[in-house]
Protein backbone atom coordinates (compact mmCIF):
# COMPACT_ATOMS: atom_id res chain seq x y z
CA UNK A 1 0.00 0.00 0.00
CA UNK A 2 3.04 2.21 -0.01
CA UNK A 3 2.63 5.27 -2.13
CA UNK A 4 5.22 7.63 -3.29
CA UNK A 5 4.08 10.13 -5.83
CA UNK A 6 6.89 11.06 -8.10
CA UNK A 7 7.67 13.67 -10.64
CA UNK A 8 5.97 16.66 -9.07
CA UNK A 9 8.35 19.55 -9.04
CA UNK A 10 8.64 21.10 -5.65
CA UNK A 11 8.56 24.67 -4.45
CA UNK A 12 10.32 23.60 -1.29
CA UNK A 13 13.84 22.42 -0.72
CA UNK A 14 15.10 18.85 -0.71
CA UNK A 15 13.27 18.22 2.54
CA UNK A 16 11.78 14.77 2.45
CA UNK A 17 8.85 13.71 4.55
CA UNK A 18 8.89 10.10 5.50
CA UNK A 19 5.51 9.25 6.92
CA UNK A 20 4.25 6.04 8.41
CA UNK A 21 0.58 5.39 8.99
CA UNK A 22 -0.27 2.63 11.43
CA UNK A 23 -3.68 1.01 11.04
CA UNK A 24 -5.37 -2.19 12.17
CA UNK A 25 -7.33 -3.59 9.28
CA UNK A 26 -9.54 -1.65 6.93
CA UNK A 27 -11.64 0.14 9.48
CA UNK A 28 -13.56 3.33 8.66
CA UNK A 29 -11.16 5.28 10.86
CA UNK A 30 -8.13 3.86 9.06
CA UNK A 31 -9.56 4.53 5.63
CA UNK A 32 -10.51 8.07 6.63
CA UNK A 33 -7.06 8.67 8.05
CA UNK A 34 -5.37 7.50 4.87
CA UNK A 35 -7.64 9.60 2.66
CA UNK A 36 -7.15 12.68 4.82
CA UNK A 37 -3.41 12.20 4.91
CA UNK A 38 -3.19 11.74 1.17
CA UNK A 39 -5.11 14.94 0.60
CA UNK A 40 -3.07 17.01 3.03
CA UNK A 41 0.21 15.73 1.61
CA UNK A 42 -0.81 16.45 -1.95
CA UNK A 43 -1.78 19.98 -1.01
CA UNK A 44 1.18 20.82 1.16
CA UNK A 45 3.98 18.40 0.41
CA UNK A 46 3.52 17.44 -3.19
CA UNK A 47 6.51 15.49 -4.39
CA UNK A 48 8.33 15.47 -1.11
CA UNK A 49 6.69 12.78 0.83
CA UNK A 50 6.56 9.07 1.18
CA UNK A 51 3.74 7.30 2.95
CA UNK A 52 4.13 3.79 4.25
CA UNK A 53 1.00 2.14 5.61
CA UNK A 54 1.54 -0.57 8.20
CA UNK A 55 -1.31 -2.88 9.06
CA UNK A 56 -0.69 -4.14 12.58
CA UNK A 57 -3.13 -6.98 12.13
CA UNK A 58 -0.65 -8.38 9.63
CA UNK A 59 2.50 -7.24 11.38
CA UNK A 60 1.76 -7.03 15.10
CA UNK A 61 5.45 -7.15 15.95
CA UNK A 62 5.92 -3.71 14.40
CA UNK A 63 3.76 -1.97 17.01
CA UNK A 64 6.42 -1.67 19.67
CA UNK A 65 9.13 -0.23 17.44
CA UNK A 66 7.37 3.10 16.99
CA UNK A 67 5.63 2.83 20.38
CA UNK A 68 2.16 2.57 18.88
CA UNK A 69 -0.85 2.40 21.18
CA UNK A 70 -3.53 4.41 19.42
CA UNK A 71 -4.91 3.51 16.03
CA UNK A 72 -4.65 5.17 13.63
CA UNK A 73 -1.28 6.78 14.37
CA UNK A 74 0.70 8.79 11.88
CA UNK A 75 4.42 8.88 12.56
CA UNK A 76 6.61 11.48 10.95
CA UNK A 77 9.92 9.61 10.80
CA UNK A 78 11.67 12.34 8.82
CA UNK A 79 12.50 15.09 9.15
CA UNK A 80 13.49 14.61 12.75
CA UNK A 81 12.43 14.89 15.50
CA UNK A 82 9.83 12.17 15.33
CA UNK A 83 6.27 13.42 15.68
CA UNK A 84 3.11 11.45 16.19
CA UNK A 85 -0.42 12.32 15.30
CA UNK A 86 -3.16 10.08 16.53
CA UNK A 87 -6.70 9.96 15.19
CA UNK A 88 -8.33 9.92 11.79
CA UNK A 89 -6.55 13.15 10.75
CA UNK A 90 -9.89 14.86 10.13
CA UNK A 91 -8.68 18.15 11.55
CA UNK A 92 -6.35 19.44 8.84
CA UNK A 93 -5.10 22.38 10.91
CA UNK A 94 -3.91 20.14 13.68
CA UNK A 95 -2.32 17.70 11.27
CA UNK A 96 -0.33 20.57 9.81
CA UNK A 97 0.72 21.64 13.31
CA UNK A 98 1.61 18.07 14.11
CA UNK A 99 3.75 17.76 11.02
CA UNK A 100 5.36 21.09 11.83
CA UNK A 101 4.15 22.58 8.55
CA UNK A 102 2.20 25.37 10.12
CA UNK A 103 4.98 27.73 11.00
CA UNK A 104 6.60 27.61 7.58
Amino acid at each position, binding site marked *: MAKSPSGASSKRTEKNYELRL*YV*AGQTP*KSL*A*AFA*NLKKICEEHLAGQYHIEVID*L*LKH*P*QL*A*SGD*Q*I*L*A*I*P*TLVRKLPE*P*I*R*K*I*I*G*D*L*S*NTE*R*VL*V*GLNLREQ
Partner: protein
Amino acid sequence: MMPAKRNKPIKLLPKTPTGIPGLDEITAGGLPKGRTSLVTGGAGSGKTLFSMEFLVNGATEYDEPGVFMAFEESAEELAQNVASLGFDLKKLIKQKKLIIDAVRIERSEIEETGAYDLEGLFIRLGHAIDSIGAKRVVLDTIEVLFGALPNQAILRAELQRLFRWLKNKGVSAIVTGERGHDTMTRFGLEEYVADCVIVLDHRMTEQVSTRRLRIVKYRGSLHGTNEYPFLIGRDGISVLPITSLALEHKANTGRVSSGVKELDNMLAGKGFYRGSSILVSGTSGAGKTSLAASFVDAACRRGERCLYFPFEESQSQILRNMRSIGVSLAPHVKKGLLQFHATRPTLYGLEMHLVTMYDLIQEHKPQVVVMDPITDFFTIGTKTEVKAAITRIVDFLKASEITGLFTSIMSEEEAADQSVVGVSSLIDAWISLRNLEINGERHRGLFILKSRGMPHSSQVRSFHLTGSGIAIGALDLAGRRASVNSA
Protein backbone atom coordinates in the same frame (compact mmCIF):
# COMPACT_ATOMS: atom_id res chain seq x y z
CA MET B 1 -8.93 -27.24 33.18
CA MET B 2 -12.41 -25.78 33.22
CA PRO B 3 -14.97 -28.31 34.27
CA ALA B 4 -18.35 -28.59 32.58
CA LYS B 5 -20.66 -25.90 33.79
CA ARG B 6 -23.84 -27.86 34.15
CA ASN B 7 -24.88 -30.31 36.83
CA LYS B 8 -21.95 -29.53 39.03
CA PRO B 9 -21.89 -28.24 42.54
CA ILE B 10 -20.78 -24.65 42.95
CA LYS B 11 -17.10 -24.42 42.24
CA LEU B 12 -14.78 -22.39 44.35
CA LEU B 13 -13.11 -19.60 42.50
CA PRO B 14 -9.99 -21.04 40.86
CA LYS B 15 -6.82 -19.30 42.02
CA THR B 16 -3.36 -18.86 40.73
CA PRO B 17 -0.52 -18.91 43.27
CA THR B 18 1.66 -15.83 43.50
CA GLY B 19 4.53 -17.73 45.06
CA ILE B 20 4.98 -14.80 47.42
CA PRO B 21 5.55 -16.31 50.87
CA GLY B 22 2.63 -15.53 53.15
CA LEU B 23 0.38 -14.00 50.50
CA ASP B 24 -0.91 -17.28 49.18
CA GLU B 25 -1.80 -18.24 52.76
CA ILE B 26 -3.86 -15.14 53.48
CA THR B 27 -5.62 -15.31 50.12
CA ALA B 28 -6.19 -19.04 50.45
CA GLY B 29 -4.38 -19.85 47.24
CA GLY B 30 -3.35 -16.71 45.40
CA LEU B 31 -4.95 -14.30 42.97
CA PRO B 32 -8.14 -15.09 41.03
CA LYS B 33 -7.21 -17.23 38.06
CA GLY B 34 -8.06 -15.81 34.68
CA ARG B 35 -9.13 -12.50 36.20
CA THR B 36 -7.60 -9.10 36.69
CA SER B 37 -6.47 -7.91 40.08
CA LEU B 38 -5.70 -4.36 41.02
CA VAL B 39 -2.61 -3.62 43.10
CA THR B 40 -2.55 -0.06 44.27
CA GLY B 41 -0.37 2.03 46.55
CA GLY B 42 1.64 5.20 46.85
CA ALA B 43 4.98 5.88 45.23
CA GLY B 44 7.58 3.41 46.42
CA SER B 45 5.07 1.07 47.99
CA GLY B 46 6.37 -1.94 46.10
CA LYS B 47 3.75 -2.30 43.36
CA THR B 48 6.19 -2.94 40.55
CA LEU B 49 8.18 -5.43 42.57
CA PHE B 50 5.02 -7.18 43.71
CA SER B 51 3.79 -7.62 40.15
CA MET B 52 7.20 -8.59 38.82
CA GLU B 53 7.51 -11.26 41.46
CA PHE B 54 4.10 -12.59 40.44
CA LEU B 55 5.45 -13.02 36.90
CA VAL B 56 8.87 -14.36 37.84
CA ASN B 57 7.39 -16.94 40.21
CA GLY B 58 4.83 -17.86 37.57
CA ALA B 59 7.56 -18.42 35.01
CA THR B 60 9.98 -20.28 37.27
CA GLU B 61 7.72 -22.21 39.62
CA TYR B 62 4.34 -22.69 38.00
CA ASP B 63 5.19 -23.00 34.32
CA GLU B 64 3.13 -19.93 33.52
CA PRO B 65 4.94 -17.51 31.20
CA GLY B 66 4.19 -13.85 31.68
CA VAL B 67 4.08 -10.50 29.92
CA PHE B 68 5.11 -7.34 31.70
CA MET B 69 3.91 -4.17 30.05
CA ALA B 70 5.81 -1.33 31.64
CA PHE B 71 4.50 2.19 31.27
CA GLU B 72 6.96 3.85 33.59
CA GLU B 73 10.30 2.12 33.27
CA SER B 74 12.41 0.72 30.49
CA ALA B 75 13.11 -2.99 30.27
CA GLU B 76 16.71 -2.27 31.24
CA GLU B 77 15.72 -0.33 34.35
CA LEU B 78 13.30 -3.03 35.42
CA ALA B 79 15.93 -5.73 35.04
CA GLN B 80 18.39 -3.70 37.11
CA ASN B 81 15.87 -2.91 39.82
CA VAL B 82 14.99 -6.50 40.48
CA ALA B 83 18.45 -8.01 39.90
CA SER B 84 19.34 -7.40 43.56
CA LEU B 85 16.56 -9.80 44.51
CA GLY B 86 18.04 -12.51 42.38
CA PHE B 87 15.54 -12.18 39.56
CA ASP B 88 17.34 -12.80 36.29
CA LEU B 89 14.91 -11.27 33.83
CA LYS B 90 17.24 -11.55 30.86
CA LYS B 91 17.50 -15.27 31.32
CA LEU B 92 13.72 -15.64 31.55
CA ILE B 93 13.32 -13.54 28.44
CA LYS B 94 15.81 -15.71 26.60
CA GLN B 95 13.94 -18.83 27.69
CA LYS B 96 10.74 -17.31 26.34
CA LYS B 97 9.13 -17.33 29.74
CA LEU B 98 8.89 -13.60 30.03
CA ILE B 99 8.33 -10.65 27.76
CA ILE B 100 8.86 -7.09 28.85
CA ASP B 101 7.25 -4.52 26.62
CA ALA B 102 8.15 -1.04 27.70
CA VAL B 103 5.57 1.47 26.53
CA ARG B 104 6.93 4.95 26.17
CA ILE B 105 4.63 7.79 25.35
CA GLU B 106 5.64 11.41 25.23
CA ARG B 107 2.74 13.75 25.55
CA SER B 108 4.81 16.45 23.89
CA GLU B 109 5.33 14.56 20.68
CA ILE B 110 1.73 13.49 20.23
CA GLU B 111 -0.88 15.53 18.43
CA GLU B 112 -4.48 14.42 18.57
CA THR B 113 -6.80 14.87 15.65
CA GLY B 114 -10.08 13.06 15.26
CA ALA B 115 -11.35 9.69 16.37
CA TYR B 116 -9.03 6.87 17.45
CA ASP B 117 -8.95 3.80 19.64
CA LEU B 118 -6.23 1.88 21.48
CA GLU B 119 -6.18 -1.10 19.16
CA GLY B 120 -2.40 -0.72 18.94
CA LEU B 121 -2.11 -1.50 22.65
CA PHE B 122 -4.36 -4.55 22.27
CA ILE B 123 -2.35 -5.80 19.34
CA ARG B 124 0.95 -5.35 21.15
CA LEU B 125 -0.28 -7.10 24.24
CA GLY B 126 -2.03 -9.83 22.26
CA HIS B 127 1.06 -10.46 20.19
CA ALA B 128 3.24 -10.72 23.31
CA ILE B 129 0.79 -13.06 25.03
CA ASP B 130 0.44 -15.32 22.02
CA SER B 131 4.13 -15.50 21.19
CA ILE B 132 5.06 -17.20 24.50
CA GLY B 133 1.69 -18.58 25.52
CA ALA B 134 1.53 -16.24 28.49
CA LYS B 135 -0.81 -17.04 31.36
CA ARG B 136 0.05 -13.99 33.43
CA VAL B 137 0.03 -10.33 32.50
CA VAL B 138 1.07 -7.18 34.33
CA LEU B 139 0.22 -3.63 33.29
CA ASP B 140 2.39 -1.26 35.36
CA THR B 141 0.88 1.28 35.60
CA ILE B 142 -1.67 1.86 32.94
CA GLU B 143 -2.70 5.12 34.59
CA VAL B 144 0.20 6.78 32.81
CA LEU B 145 -2.08 6.82 29.78
CA PHE B 146 -4.29 9.39 31.47
CA GLY B 147 -1.46 11.85 31.34
CA ALA B 148 -0.43 10.95 27.83
CA LEU B 149 -3.74 10.87 26.01
CA PRO B 150 -5.87 13.98 26.16
CA ASN B 151 -9.18 12.35 25.37
CA GLN B 152 -10.38 10.80 28.62
CA ALA B 153 -13.69 9.59 27.19
CA ILE B 154 -11.95 7.44 24.60
CA LEU B 155 -9.43 6.23 27.16
CA ARG B 156 -12.06 5.14 29.67
CA ALA B 157 -14.07 3.31 27.05
CA GLU B 158 -10.92 1.58 25.85
CA LEU B 159 -9.83 0.61 29.36
CA GLN B 160 -13.18 -0.99 29.93
CA ARG B 161 -12.73 -2.87 26.68
CA LEU B 162 -9.18 -3.84 27.71
CA PHE B 163 -10.26 -5.41 31.00
CA ARG B 164 -13.02 -7.37 29.22
CA TRP B 165 -10.50 -8.45 26.65
CA LEU B 166 -8.03 -9.64 29.30
CA LYS B 167 -10.78 -11.72 30.87
CA ASN B 168 -11.63 -13.27 27.52
CA LYS B 169 -7.97 -14.04 26.99
CA GLY B 170 -8.12 -16.04 30.22
CA VAL B 171 -4.93 -14.54 31.61
CA SER B 172 -4.43 -13.82 35.28
CA ALA B 173 -3.52 -10.17 35.29
CA ILE B 174 -2.34 -7.49 37.65
CA VAL B 175 -2.90 -3.85 36.88
CA THR B 176 -1.19 -1.41 39.18
CA GLY B 177 -2.48 1.98 40.17
CA GLU B 178 -1.21 4.97 42.06
CA ARG B 179 -3.10 5.71 45.24
CA GLY B 180 -5.22 8.89 44.99
CA HIS B 181 -5.97 11.43 47.70
CA ASP B 182 -9.23 9.95 48.82
CA THR B 183 -9.66 7.29 46.20
CA MET B 184 -8.05 3.94 45.78
CA THR B 185 -6.43 4.98 42.52
CA ARG B 186 -5.93 8.41 41.06
CA PHE B 187 -8.01 7.72 37.99
CA GLY B 188 -10.56 5.35 39.41
CA LEU B 189 -9.22 2.09 37.97
CA GLU B 190 -11.05 0.25 40.75
CA GLU B 191 -14.26 0.86 38.78
CA TYR B 192 -13.04 -1.55 36.13
CA VAL B 193 -11.47 -4.20 38.30
CA ALA B 194 -14.08 -5.91 40.36
CA ASP B 195 -12.51 -9.17 41.40
CA CYS B 196 -9.57 -8.47 43.64
CA VAL B 197 -8.07 -5.30 45.02
CA ILE B 198 -4.86 -5.25 47.07
CA VAL B 199 -3.55 -2.08 48.68
CA LEU B 200 0.14 -1.68 49.48
CA ASP B 201 1.24 0.91 51.92
CA HIS B 202 4.58 2.25 53.07
CA ARG B 203 4.44 4.40 56.14
CA MET B 204 6.41 5.56 59.11
CA THR B 205 5.16 4.42 62.48
CA GLU B 206 7.13 5.41 65.54
CA GLN B 207 10.04 6.42 63.33
CA VAL B 208 10.09 2.99 61.82
CA SER B 209 9.11 2.41 58.24
CA THR B 210 6.69 -0.41 57.73
CA ARG B 211 5.29 -1.85 54.59
CA ARG B 212 1.79 -3.16 54.86
CA LEU B 213 -0.52 -5.07 52.61
CA ARG B 214 -4.26 -5.29 52.78
CA ILE B 215 -6.74 -7.19 50.69
CA VAL B 216 -9.56 -4.71 50.29
CA LYS B 217 -11.70 -6.89 48.15
CA TYR B 218 -11.67 -10.42 46.87
CA ARG B 219 -14.91 -11.35 45.24
CA GLY B 220 -16.03 -14.90 45.83
CA SER B 221 -13.22 -15.76 48.18
CA LEU B 222 -12.43 -15.74 51.84
CA HIS B 223 -9.40 -13.71 52.68
CA GLY B 224 -7.58 -12.25 55.63
CA THR B 225 -8.80 -8.72 56.23
CA ASN B 226 -6.02 -7.47 58.44
CA GLU B 227 -3.23 -5.23 57.41
CA TYR B 228 -0.26 -7.50 57.09
CA PRO B 229 3.28 -6.23 57.38
CA PHE B 230 5.46 -7.28 54.50
CA LEU B 231 9.13 -7.11 53.77
CA ILE B 232 11.16 -6.60 50.70
CA GLY B 233 13.97 -8.92 51.55
CA ARG B 234 16.80 -10.62 49.78
CA ASP B 235 14.50 -12.87 47.80
CA GLY B 236 11.69 -10.46 47.16
CA ILE B 237 8.49 -9.85 49.02
CA SER B 238 7.36 -11.84 52.00
CA VAL B 239 4.15 -11.21 53.81
CA LEU B 240 3.85 -11.93 57.52
CA PRO B 241 2.60 -14.09 59.03
CA ILE B 242 4.65 -16.72 57.39
CA THR B 243 3.15 -20.00 58.37
CA SER B 244 6.31 -21.94 57.94
CA LEU B 245 5.79 -24.89 60.19
CA ALA B 246 6.95 -27.26 57.53
CA LEU B 247 10.05 -28.26 59.51
CA GLU B 248 12.15 -28.66 56.43
CA HIS B 249 15.37 -27.07 57.59
CA LYS B 250 18.33 -29.34 57.38
CA ALA B 251 20.14 -30.20 60.57
CA ASN B 252 23.64 -28.87 60.86
CA THR B 253 26.30 -31.09 62.38
CA GLY B 254 28.86 -28.30 62.81
CA ARG B 255 29.51 -27.15 66.36
CA VAL B 256 30.11 -23.75 67.87
CA SER B 257 31.72 -22.95 71.18
CA SER B 258 29.55 -21.46 73.88
CA GLY B 259 32.40 -19.15 74.72
CA VAL B 260 32.92 -20.86 78.05
CA LYS B 261 35.29 -23.80 77.97
CA GLU B 262 33.73 -25.68 80.86
CA LEU B 263 30.29 -25.31 79.34
CA ASP B 264 31.59 -26.69 76.05
CA ASN B 265 32.92 -29.62 78.06
CA MET B 266 29.48 -30.20 79.49
CA LEU B 267 28.11 -30.23 75.91
CA ALA B 268 30.07 -33.27 74.81
CA GLY B 269 33.22 -31.19 74.64
CA LYS B 270 32.30 -29.20 71.56
CA GLY B 271 29.58 -26.72 72.41
CA PHE B 272 26.27 -26.14 70.65
CA TYR B 273 25.20 -27.24 67.21
CA ARG B 274 25.53 -24.50 64.64
CA GLY B 275 22.14 -23.24 63.55
CA SER B 276 20.41 -24.54 66.65
CA SER B 277 18.18 -22.61 69.02
CA ILE B 278 19.49 -22.10 72.53
CA LEU B 279 17.54 -20.97 75.54
CA VAL B 280 19.20 -19.55 78.62
CA SER B 281 16.72 -19.23 81.41
CA GLY B 282 17.16 -17.93 84.88
CA THR B 283 16.05 -15.60 87.57
CA SER B 284 16.89 -11.95 87.45
CA GLY B 285 20.62 -11.43 87.94
CA ALA B 286 21.47 -15.06 87.35
CA GLY B 287 23.97 -14.26 84.62
CA LYS B 288 21.97 -14.80 81.45
CA THR B 289 23.30 -11.76 79.65
CA SER B 290 26.84 -12.64 80.69
CA LEU B 291 26.47 -16.08 79.16
CA ALA B 292 24.98 -14.58 76.01
CA ALA B 293 27.81 -12.06 75.81
CA SER B 294 30.45 -14.77 76.16
CA PHE B 295 28.82 -16.68 73.36
CA VAL B 296 28.76 -13.59 71.16
CA ASP B 297 32.35 -12.77 72.06
CA ALA B 298 33.50 -16.24 70.99
CA ALA B 299 31.56 -16.00 67.73
CA CYS B 300 33.03 -12.62 66.86
CA ARG B 301 36.52 -13.89 67.66
CA ARG B 302 35.90 -16.57 65.03
CA GLY B 303 35.06 -13.75 62.66
CA GLU B 304 31.34 -14.43 62.63
CA ARG B 305 28.71 -11.75 62.50
CA CYS B 306 26.33 -11.30 65.39
CA LEU B 307 23.13 -9.41 65.91
CA TYR B 308 22.13 -8.67 69.48
CA PHE B 309 18.59 -7.56 70.39
CA PRO B 310 18.54 -6.33 73.98
CA PHE B 311 15.08 -5.43 75.19
CA GLU B 312 16.00 -4.09 78.61
CA GLU B 313 19.47 -2.61 78.40
CA SER B 314 21.16 -0.20 76.05
CA GLN B 315 24.20 -1.08 74.03
CA SER B 316 26.55 0.99 76.18
CA GLN B 317 25.16 -0.51 79.34
CA ILE B 318 25.82 -4.02 78.08
CA LEU B 319 29.31 -3.10 76.87
CA ARG B 320 30.16 -1.59 80.26
CA ASN B 321 28.74 -4.45 82.31
CA MET B 322 30.43 -7.09 80.23
CA ARG B 323 33.74 -5.30 80.42
CA SER B 324 33.51 -5.68 84.19
CA ILE B 325 33.60 -9.45 83.79
CA GLY B 326 36.39 -9.26 81.27
CA VAL B 327 34.30 -9.73 78.13
CA SER B 328 35.19 -6.94 75.78
CA LEU B 329 32.59 -6.54 73.05
CA ALA B 330 33.40 -3.00 71.92
CA PRO B 331 36.14 -4.06 69.44
CA HIS B 332 33.65 -6.37 67.71
CA VAL B 333 31.20 -3.51 67.40
CA LYS B 334 33.92 -1.32 65.96
CA LYS B 335 34.83 -3.98 63.42
CA GLY B 336 31.20 -4.18 62.36
CA LEU B 337 30.90 -7.83 63.33
CA LEU B 338 28.57 -7.17 66.23
CA GLN B 339 25.50 -5.01 65.97
CA PHE B 340 23.15 -4.08 68.77
CA HIS B 341 19.60 -3.14 68.16
CA ALA B 342 18.05 -2.11 71.46
CA THR B 343 14.32 -1.52 71.63
CA ARG B 344 11.69 -1.57 74.30
CA PRO B 345 9.15 -4.27 73.51
CA THR B 346 6.38 -1.76 74.13
CA LEU B 347 7.72 0.52 71.40
CA TYR B 348 5.57 -1.19 68.85
CA GLY B 349 3.51 -4.29 68.22
CA LEU B 350 4.68 -7.84 67.98
CA GLU B 351 4.40 -7.97 64.20
CA MET B 352 6.49 -4.86 63.89
CA HIS B 353 9.17 -6.42 66.06
CA LEU B 354 9.17 -9.45 63.84
CA VAL B 355 9.40 -7.36 60.72
CA THR B 356 12.20 -5.24 62.14
CA MET B 357 14.15 -8.27 63.25
CA TYR B 358 13.67 -10.01 59.93
CA ASP B 359 14.80 -6.88 58.14
CA LEU B 360 17.89 -6.44 60.28
CA ILE B 361 18.78 -10.09 59.98
CA GLN B 362 18.49 -9.91 56.20
CA GLU B 363 20.61 -6.80 56.22
CA HIS B 364 23.35 -7.76 58.68
CA LYS B 365 23.45 -11.43 57.65
CA PRO B 366 24.59 -12.69 61.04
CA GLN B 367 25.65 -16.22 62.01
CA VAL B 368 24.46 -15.60 65.55
CA VAL B 369 21.37 -13.81 66.81
CA VAL B 370 20.70 -13.04 70.47
CA MET B 371 17.38 -11.92 71.91
CA ASP B 372 17.65 -10.80 75.49
CA PRO B 373 15.15 -11.54 76.96
CA ILE B 374 12.32 -12.99 74.88
CA THR B 375 10.05 -13.12 77.90
CA ASP B 376 9.63 -9.34 77.60
CA PHE B 377 7.36 -9.95 74.64
CA PHE B 378 4.71 -11.23 77.01
CA THR B 379 4.07 -7.61 77.94
CA ILE B 380 2.80 -6.82 74.45
CA GLY B 381 0.93 -9.93 73.43
CA THR B 382 -1.01 -12.87 74.69
CA LYS B 383 0.79 -16.09 75.40
CA THR B 384 -0.47 -17.60 72.15
CA GLU B 385 0.59 -14.63 70.08
CA VAL B 386 4.02 -14.50 71.62
CA LYS B 387 4.52 -18.19 71.20
CA ALA B 388 3.51 -17.94 67.55
CA ALA B 389 5.90 -15.05 67.04
CA ILE B 390 8.79 -16.84 68.70
CA THR B 391 8.02 -19.94 66.68
CA ARG B 392 8.33 -17.88 63.53
CA ILE B 393 11.62 -16.40 64.60
CA VAL B 394 13.03 -19.78 65.54
CA ASP B 395 11.89 -21.23 62.22
CA PHE B 396 13.30 -18.33 60.32
CA LEU B 397 16.67 -18.56 62.06
CA LYS B 398 16.84 -22.29 61.51
CA ALA B 399 15.96 -21.99 57.87
CA SER B 400 18.73 -19.41 57.52
CA GLU B 401 21.14 -21.62 59.53
CA ILE B 402 21.64 -18.92 62.11
CA THR B 403 22.37 -19.93 65.69
CA GLY B 404 19.85 -18.26 67.95
CA LEU B 405 20.34 -17.63 71.64
CA PHE B 406 17.33 -16.50 73.63
CA THR B 407 17.29 -15.58 77.25
CA SER B 408 14.27 -15.98 79.41
CA ILE B 409 13.56 -14.48 82.80
CA MET B 410 11.89 -16.71 85.31
CA SER B 411 10.86 -16.27 88.87
CA GLU B 412 12.13 -18.84 91.38
CA GLU B 413 8.77 -20.59 91.32
CA GLU B 414 8.66 -20.70 87.54
CA ALA B 415 12.19 -21.97 87.41
CA ALA B 416 11.01 -25.01 89.26
CA ASP B 417 8.25 -25.57 86.76
CA GLN B 418 10.32 -26.10 83.69
CA SER B 419 7.77 -25.79 80.93
CA VAL B 420 6.59 -22.29 81.59
CA VAL B 421 8.23 -20.62 78.65
CA GLY B 422 5.81 -22.35 76.36
CA VAL B 423 8.40 -22.42 73.64
CA SER B 424 10.70 -24.91 75.30
CA SER B 425 9.69 -27.58 72.82
CA LEU B 426 11.12 -25.49 69.99
CA ILE B 427 14.44 -25.16 71.69
CA ASP B 428 17.37 -27.46 70.97
CA ALA B 429 19.54 -26.65 73.95
CA TRP B 430 18.37 -25.27 77.24
CA ILE B 431 20.73 -23.93 79.88
CA SER B 432 19.22 -23.13 83.22
CA LEU B 433 20.84 -20.69 85.64
CA ARG B 434 19.60 -20.73 89.20
CA ASN B 435 20.34 -19.29 92.53
CA LEU B 436 20.81 -22.14 94.92
CA GLU B 437 20.97 -22.03 98.65
CA ILE B 438 23.22 -24.69 100.05
CA ASN B 439 24.17 -24.84 103.67
CA GLY B 440 23.18 -21.26 104.20
CA GLU B 441 25.23 -19.96 101.33
CA ARG B 442 23.93 -18.59 98.06
CA HIS B 443 25.39 -20.21 94.95
CA ARG B 444 24.87 -19.56 91.33
CA GLY B 445 24.21 -22.86 89.71
CA LEU B 446 24.16 -23.90 86.05
CA PHE B 447 22.84 -27.03 84.49
CA ILE B 448 21.79 -28.28 81.11
CA LEU B 449 18.10 -29.04 80.98
CA LYS B 450 18.36 -30.48 77.55
CA SER B 451 20.60 -30.58 74.55
CA ARG B 452 19.19 -32.38 71.57
CA GLY B 453 21.35 -34.72 69.60
CA MET B 454 24.36 -34.96 71.91
CA PRO B 455 25.37 -36.54 75.17
CA HIS B 456 25.60 -33.85 77.81
CA SER B 457 26.37 -33.38 81.44
CA SER B 458 23.51 -33.77 83.88
CA GLN B 459 25.33 -32.18 86.78
CA VAL B 460 24.49 -28.94 88.50
CA ARG B 461 27.67 -26.87 88.34
CA SER B 462 28.66 -23.73 90.09
CA PHE B 463 28.63 -20.65 87.96
CA HIS B 464 30.75 -17.61 88.75
CA LEU B 465 31.18 -14.26 87.16
CA THR B 466 34.82 -13.30 87.58
CA GLY B 467 36.84 -10.34 86.39
CA SER B 468 38.09 -12.52 83.57
CA GLY B 469 34.88 -14.09 82.40
CA ILE B 470 32.55 -16.88 83.37
CA ALA B 471 33.90 -19.70 85.46
CA ILE B 472 32.10 -22.96 85.88
CA GLY B 473 33.17 -25.52 88.39
CA ALA B 474 32.04 -28.23 90.72
CA LEU B 475 29.46 -27.29 93.25
CA ASP B 476 31.05 -27.38 96.66
CA LEU B 477 28.53 -28.95 98.90
CA ALA B 478 30.70 -28.59 101.95
CA GLY B 479 29.79 -24.94 102.08
CA ARG B 480 33.18 -23.57 101.17
CA ARG B 481 33.68 -21.50 98.12
CA ALA B 482 33.41 -23.61 95.00
CA SER B 483 36.67 -24.44 93.32
CA VAL B 484 37.04 -22.40 90.22
CA ASN B 485 38.83 -23.44 87.09
CA SER B 486 40.40 -20.60 85.24
CA ALA B 487 38.44 -19.59 82.19
